């Protein structure tokens, strides 16, 4: 006779993720029967209050969705509006916007790698506790974050919720001299980032691989950041941004305020560093590729715990490319082009630090927004995160409860989830039956 036992492990506060949520895992007789990533942060209704606003306002309204990746929201919004109105922003203004986006990647990746995720691997509860034992590591992290913040401030007007992007370009294009002030800080940041790849590559990684479709934006010759004409995947998907709704569908699950996104016809997929690394590895800068090779990484990397190394490689890329963009920057004749609204539907996709961010807007001939859909990376990754948790718990049943809880939290942080974007923080519950 089999003995049926139920056991509950509960961590009410899972720290070091962005936003408020909880996790529940139920184990019955050694089998995982339920895995729920519960996002209880209240819905924020951004899509609803965009309706009735002018098409030029979405850039600053959607920026407020996230304090970590506002530029991602801004770029997806302006790209959608510009494509809808038949305008392409290229030349120095596009490069400037991409440079701003690099600043956001640097700031966001540095925060996640060092302050949020590294403590998991090094066995600390917080970045502050880690700082006591590894002060050089945290000092480096602060220098990296500062380099990213400076880029945001000089180009974006301020480091959090920058105000310089607009439909058609930017409000003000900085001078070459202003951008040149960023170079010293970025050169130091590049050295730190290269060192960071080697450092995180030597962490201990649980032996686990996932077989999930990896989806990312793609652009010939460039690593996907600010924009791209195609959305591609490791399973052969190759579509334009307007085709996105034909291939991905959102659904509501009872335990989360964030919509879950899946492939049409079923199946989870993953966006973010692992996906970009898998589909655009060859477009990393030579220095970033070299760092990846030194860390023993090859695309596709399928161990989500090694995403911290991939993120560090992307950090090298973002800093390296930022330095190049500054060196090659030419002041544009005009900071923006005029954009006349026209009735229609526009789609904008960019690569937030956490992954592909899709916006869709319908506007009328006067430019009033009639309908808005925003699909953030964390929503898209939820199903895959839950699948990962299930697999990781199944392989780690022998661990004591406290250790299993920590492993679960680490698994969630592999994805740097931004719950605020998806609807903000996590609580963990494990039931063992």
């Amino acid at each position, binding site marked *: 006779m089999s003995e049926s036992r139920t056991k509950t492990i509960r961590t009410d506060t899972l720290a070091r993720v*962005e936003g408020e949520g909880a996790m529940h895992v139920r184990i019955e007789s050694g089998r995982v029967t339920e895995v729920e990533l519960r996002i209880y942060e209240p819905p924020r209704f951004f899509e609803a209050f965009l309706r009735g606003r002018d098409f030029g306002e979405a850039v600053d309204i959607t920026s407020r969705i996230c304090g970590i990746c506002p530029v991602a929201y801004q770029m997806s919004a302006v790209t959608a509006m510009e494509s809808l109105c038949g305008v392409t922003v290229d030349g120095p203004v596009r490069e400037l916007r991409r440079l701003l986006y690099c600043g956001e990647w640097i700031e966001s990746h540095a925060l996640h790698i060092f*302050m949020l995720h590294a403590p998991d691997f090094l066995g600390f509860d917080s*970045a*502050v506790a880690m*700082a006591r034992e590894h*002060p050089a590591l*945290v000092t480096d992290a602060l220098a990296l974050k500062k380099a990213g*913040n400076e880029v945001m401030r000089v180009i974006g007007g301020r*480091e*959090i919720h920058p105000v310089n992007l607009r439909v058609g370009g930017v409000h003000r294009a900085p001078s070459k001299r202003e951008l040149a002030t960023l170079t010293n800080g970025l050169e130091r940041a590049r050295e730190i980032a290269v060192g960071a790849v080697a450092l995180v590559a030597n962490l201990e990684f649980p032996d686990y691989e996932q077989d999930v479709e990896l989806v990312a934006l793609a652009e010939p010759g460039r690593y996907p950041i600010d924009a791209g004409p195609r959305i591609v995947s490791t399973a052969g998907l190759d579509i334009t941004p307007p085709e996105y709704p034909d291939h991905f569908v959102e659904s509501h699950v009872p335990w989360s305020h964030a919509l879950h996104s899946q492939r049409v016809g079923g199946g989870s997929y993953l966006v973010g560093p692992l996906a970009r690394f898998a589909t655009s590895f060859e477009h990393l800068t030579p220095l970033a590729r070299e760092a990846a090779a030194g860390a023993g990484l090859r695309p596709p990397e399928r161990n989500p715990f090694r995403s911290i190394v991939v993120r560090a490689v992307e950090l090298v890329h973002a800093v390296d490319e930022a330095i190049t963009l500054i060196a090659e920057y030419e002041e544009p004749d005009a900071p923006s082009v005029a954009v006349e609204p026209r009735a229609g539907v526009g789609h904008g996709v960019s690569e937030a630090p956490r992954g592909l961010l899709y916006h869709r807007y319908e506007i009328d001939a006067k430019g009033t927004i009639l309908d808005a859909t925003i699909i953030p990376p964390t929503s898209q990754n939820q199903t895959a995160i839950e699948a990962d948790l299930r697999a990781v718990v199944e392989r780690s049943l022998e661990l004591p409860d406290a250790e299993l809880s920590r492993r679960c939290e680490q698994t969630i942080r592999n994805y740097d989830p931004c719950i605020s974007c998806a609807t903000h923080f996590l609580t963990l519950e494990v039931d063992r039956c």
Partner: protein
Amino acid sequence: MLRLVGIGNRWRGDDGAGLAVAALLSERAPAGVDIVVHEREPVELIETFDGAAAVWLVDAVRSGAPPGTVHRIDASEHFLPAELFSVSTHRLGLAGAIELARALGRLPPRVIVHGIEGERFEAGEELSPAVEAATRQLAATLEAEVAAC
């Protein structure tokens, strides 16, 4: 070097209280006192600690006390209650920045934090009357305290 740092967001009502105290003191600070206005990420405060023998930090807080109440905490001796200075789950707040500086050995020997209880934090540049009165009173107190240092 003695340093006084006003922290806040001038566009969010009473969140500008710390900045207002810094502005008042910049008009009459004793020689040798460096007045800093900090409108950036709290974690970047650590840079304002470097090279300072003593730092006074002034920020707005929201704890439920009557508006204009001034909380004083000697951070060189006590941990800061994170909930008093929490701004976001995304970022380290003032308390986090101070504890990080302590862990890194970058906390000056003397760190005094003043929190002015705010009333309204909506968009707008004006301080509410109780908070404005508190900023004037605290500026006068700090002027004397810093001068005696």
